[in-house]
């Protein structure tokens, strides 16, 4: 039986690696300390594999065919994508996948009402390149990436995301071998890439959302953290928090604790991270 040893969610905005030097010193320090703490805690949990859930930034799926979720089934991954390399400023890296676990997730989720797409050929941008750079800089923990649709309507509703997280946790635990698994959502918090609020961070929304997750009341989160509210706090970026709702589902009835929050206009994103690891 596999064991879920950690459930976390964190921002992945490319400024964190791409132009961190443009942010005020105190923001840089808080961000690096926050990611550092999360990385240390994650490595201390000794996961064999990270199952990640993050927005696909219109990089992998043509609009004819955008899946709600697509599980990466390759045995090995490379990043960052050529298109994104200069912007995200992360040197080329390789990380192992876990093909058998990924196929198991696709098969078993299918029996639970989730028709997941799967692919051996996902390209990575900031969605994995930024968090891995900070959390597992040696690239020594395998990754099963699950790319999700947070930006091409119709989007999976918050309730659907939450149920998917519950199913994901169940099917991971049903994996017959001993395996330590971390669930990691990436994306958010408030940002509006290329949109009207590009140079703005909605700190009020972000702090409200973090506090809401901290209540541990999933029903209330799903009622209040609507797609409309996310979009109002930054179109096209804040909706990546749908991935966090998947992690919330995977975490079960626990409340989230905020590891860090840095509203950074320079990085054009509310940067933050949470964990659901408190017993």
């Amino acid at each position: 039986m596999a064991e879920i040893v950690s459930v976390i969610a964190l921002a992945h905005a490319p400024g964190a690696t791409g132009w961190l030097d443009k942010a005020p010193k105190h923001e840089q320090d808080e961000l690096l300390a926050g990611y550092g703490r999360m990385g240390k805690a994650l490595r201390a949990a000794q996961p064999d594999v990270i199952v990640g859930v993050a927005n696909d930034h219109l990089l992998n799926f043509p609009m004819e065919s955008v899946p709600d979720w697509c599980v990466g089934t390759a045995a090995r991954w490379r990043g960052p994508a050529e298109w994104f390399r200069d912007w995200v400023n992360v040197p080329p890296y390789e990380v192992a996948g876990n093909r058998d676990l990924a196929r198991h997730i696709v098969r078993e989720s299918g029996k639970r009402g989730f028709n997941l797409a799967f692919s051996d050929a996902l390209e990575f941008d900031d969605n994995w390149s930024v968090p891995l750079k900070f959390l597992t800089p040696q690239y020594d923990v395998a990754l099963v990436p699950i790319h999700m649709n947070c930006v091409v309507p119709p989007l999976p509703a918050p309730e659907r995301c939450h149920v998917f997280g519950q199913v994901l946790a169940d099917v991971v635990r049903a994996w017959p071998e001993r395996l330590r698994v971390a669930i990691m959502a990436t994306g958010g918090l408030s940002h509006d890439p290329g949109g009207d609020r590009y140079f703005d961070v909605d700190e009020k929304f972000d702090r409200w959302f973090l506090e809401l997750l901290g209540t541990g009341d999933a029903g209330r989160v799903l009622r209040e953290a609507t797609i409309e509210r996310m979009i109002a706090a930054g179109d096209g970026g804040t909706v990546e928090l749908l991935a966090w709702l998947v992690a919330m589902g995977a975490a079960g009835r626990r409340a989230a604790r905020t590891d860090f929050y840095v509203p950074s206009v320079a990085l054009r994103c509310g940067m933050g991270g949470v964990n659901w690891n408190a017993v």
Partner: protein
Amino acid sequence: MSILNTDKTLPANKLIFEVRRDAAKRERFRSDLEALMREYGLSEEEKRALREVDIRRLAELGMHPYFLRR
């Protein structure tokens, strides 16, 4: 400009999606835009807006906000 206005059937969305992924198409986007737009079946209005980098109009037509930056 909102992701909610995206028309995922808009030919210009397919064109930009593929230009982002493919360096050869990126080169053609710079050197041979008219032929590229014809191949993807863009309407005259899409062609005009893309030619003139009319961001507002492209958004109205349903281009995804991610494709309206950079």
